[in-house]
């Protein structure tokens, strides 16, 4: 293989530059080079497809029923009538928007916090404490993730009605207080993130196991706990099936409010879609601030190596 210097002398500067370019590309294995514009174009298309339905929601929410009957995309930009529709949704008589919003907040916050606390506690135990039956019990936890427990709704409903919990938030909160996934996730994380030396040091200093958990394990688990809380929050905020069975229109969550909007205002789809956007907005805001964390959470396998 001739060196670049030789190429430059024999075939000129341009050829030398071309050769060196080609060679560099080969040297880095074709892997680390920047992709061409086609890649960006396809990815941009994927992102646009992801945004388009939300954009469409805003457009329809800014229109009138007559306009959308005449033209499927009546205008290109949302306008002020969007806010009129927002306030119509908020002041709707079919359900109380703020009550639904408050219920969603309560359910999502309480279950997220509880999932993080109990999962970290169980994860600490599974990852760092020795006890009989630890392996089989952990295997059991993992196995339950594959069980479609959603199909037990009929007896669960019977239990809730025995407790007089139908229509009340605890009927949604209590079954969501801890998840098998959360336990598995925190176990995996604490196994690698919490050194035994720290636990031993705390024990030598006379800390009880719970104190060790509270002062050593919980702070160490923070990065994974934040991600777990985020995923739990999104999951509960978007949860529909069980709440739609056990709650009612006097005490709905936001996803139920969406369904109520549809059932009550289907003649005016502009109002319905304005409401849909309003319901989606809190998670969009969350996504702006925490989307990076969500991505990292999904990919944490690769990121943490």
């Amino acid at each position, binding site marked *: 293989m001739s060196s670049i210097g030789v190429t430059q002398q024999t075939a000129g500067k341009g050829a030398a530059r071309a050769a060196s370019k080609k060679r560099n590309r080969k040297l880095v*294995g074709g*892997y680390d*080079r920047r*992709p061409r514009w086609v*890649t960006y174009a396809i*990815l941009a298309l*994927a*992102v646009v497809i992801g*945004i388009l*339905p939300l954009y*469409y929601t805003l457009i329809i929410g800014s229109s009138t029923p007559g306009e959308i*009957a*005449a*033209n499927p995309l009546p205008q290109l930009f949302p306008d002020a009538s969007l806010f009129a529709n927002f306030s119509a949704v908020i002041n709707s008589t079919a359900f109380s928007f703020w009550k639904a919003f408050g219920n969603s907040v309560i359910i999502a916050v309480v279950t997220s916090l509880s999932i993080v606390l*109990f*999962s970290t*506690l*169980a994860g600490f135990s599974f990852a760092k*404490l020795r006890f009989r039956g630890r392996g089989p*019990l952990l295997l059991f936890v993992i196995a*339950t993730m*594959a069980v*479609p*427990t*959603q*199909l037990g*709704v*009929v007896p669960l*409903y019977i239990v809730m009605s025995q407790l007089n919990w139908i229509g009340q938030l605890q009927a949604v909160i209590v079954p969501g207080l*801890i998840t098998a*996934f959360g*336990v598995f*996730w925190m176990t995996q994380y604490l196994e690698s993130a919490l050194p035994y030396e720290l636990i031993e040091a705390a024990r030598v200093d006379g800390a*009880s*196991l*719970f104190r060790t*958990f509270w002062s050593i394990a919980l702070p160490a688990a923070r990065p994974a706990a934040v991600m777990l809380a985020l*995923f739990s929050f999104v999951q509960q905020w*978007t949860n*529909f*099936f069980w709440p*739609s069975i056990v709650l009612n229109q006097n005490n709905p969550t*936001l*996803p139920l409010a*969406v*369904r109520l909007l549809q059932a009550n205002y*289907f003649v005016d789809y502009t109002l319905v879609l304005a409401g*849909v956007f309003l319901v*989606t907005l809190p998670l969009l805001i*969350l*996504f702006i601030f925490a989307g*990076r964390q*969500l*991505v990292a*959470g*999904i*990919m*944490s*396998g*690769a990121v943490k190596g």
Partner: protein
Amino acid sequence: MSLKSPAPPAPAPEAPYRAPRRVGFSQTLSRWDVKVSPYLYISPFFILFAVTGLFPLVYTAVVSLHQWTLLGGQGDFVGFQNYIDVFNQPNFWKSLRNTFSIFLFSSVPQVVVAIAIAALLDQNLRARTFWRMGVLLPYVVAPVAVGLIFGRLFADQSGLINAWLGAIGIDPVKWHVDVIPSHIAIASMVNFRWTGYNALIFLAAMQAVPRELYEAAIIDGAGRMRQFFSVTVPQIRSTIIFIIITSTIGGLQIFDEPRVYDEYGTGGADKQWLTTTLYLYDLGWGTQANFGRAAAVAWLLFIVIIAIGLVNFAITRRISSGDAPKMTRNQRRAYARANAARRNR
């Protein structure tokens, strides 16, 4: 010394002298702490799972063998009558057909597109985080919201999709009347929400592929495409199988999207998009208010899902017992989350 006296018992080896000590209360407490606390810490999961997961699932079988209504409560034991009733309702068979059809329309394209997006993301991109977040955005839109938005996009009259089809000379499709079009519309909602999410899981798997394999492939003269099909796809095969299994468990329980596909929420005038879970809901809390039959449907669907899961598992084991690489712990973690996230969708 003719008399043999019984040999004196051999003196026990002298135990190391231990000072008689009082076991302090704090010490007892500490030993108790070490023994019991581990179980105490894991107990919330097991208690809650037993009460809200396992018991209802098992008790579903009991309810399904009884006359049992929403208002009347438990009635007589009727054996398999509820199952016979359900089998005799054409809507049950329609719901199974619809569920599988929607599942196929949602899972196959979703996996293919997600892998393609992951392959694009698995490059040395500028603004990497932006693109990753961009494809994940639909994940935060609730399924009911997606259902309503797409219900409008796929409206039979003055819907955007039909307008676009008209622009390229295709006759308007009756998305809310015909069977297959309604399945495609509902499947597209599922795909919308989950494709980017799965792409990120595939991306994580792709990044775990040893770079040396690509270098070797390049030295052997493999182009981009060849690298993808001969290195990437075989290396992430276990992830692909995993995603298929989890999306089966979640996909066969689909409820939210068909529930809000029209304003009535009963699966269409001719039950074109009645899914099995929607049928279960309608039996239990809709027109019939019959818990016995609803439980029978739940139990049947449960058996179907478990059976498909086991078949999947068997196939997986056969395939991956070959040269497939073992999953790393981190990959397993990524899969598990996908599994959990899908369970309640």
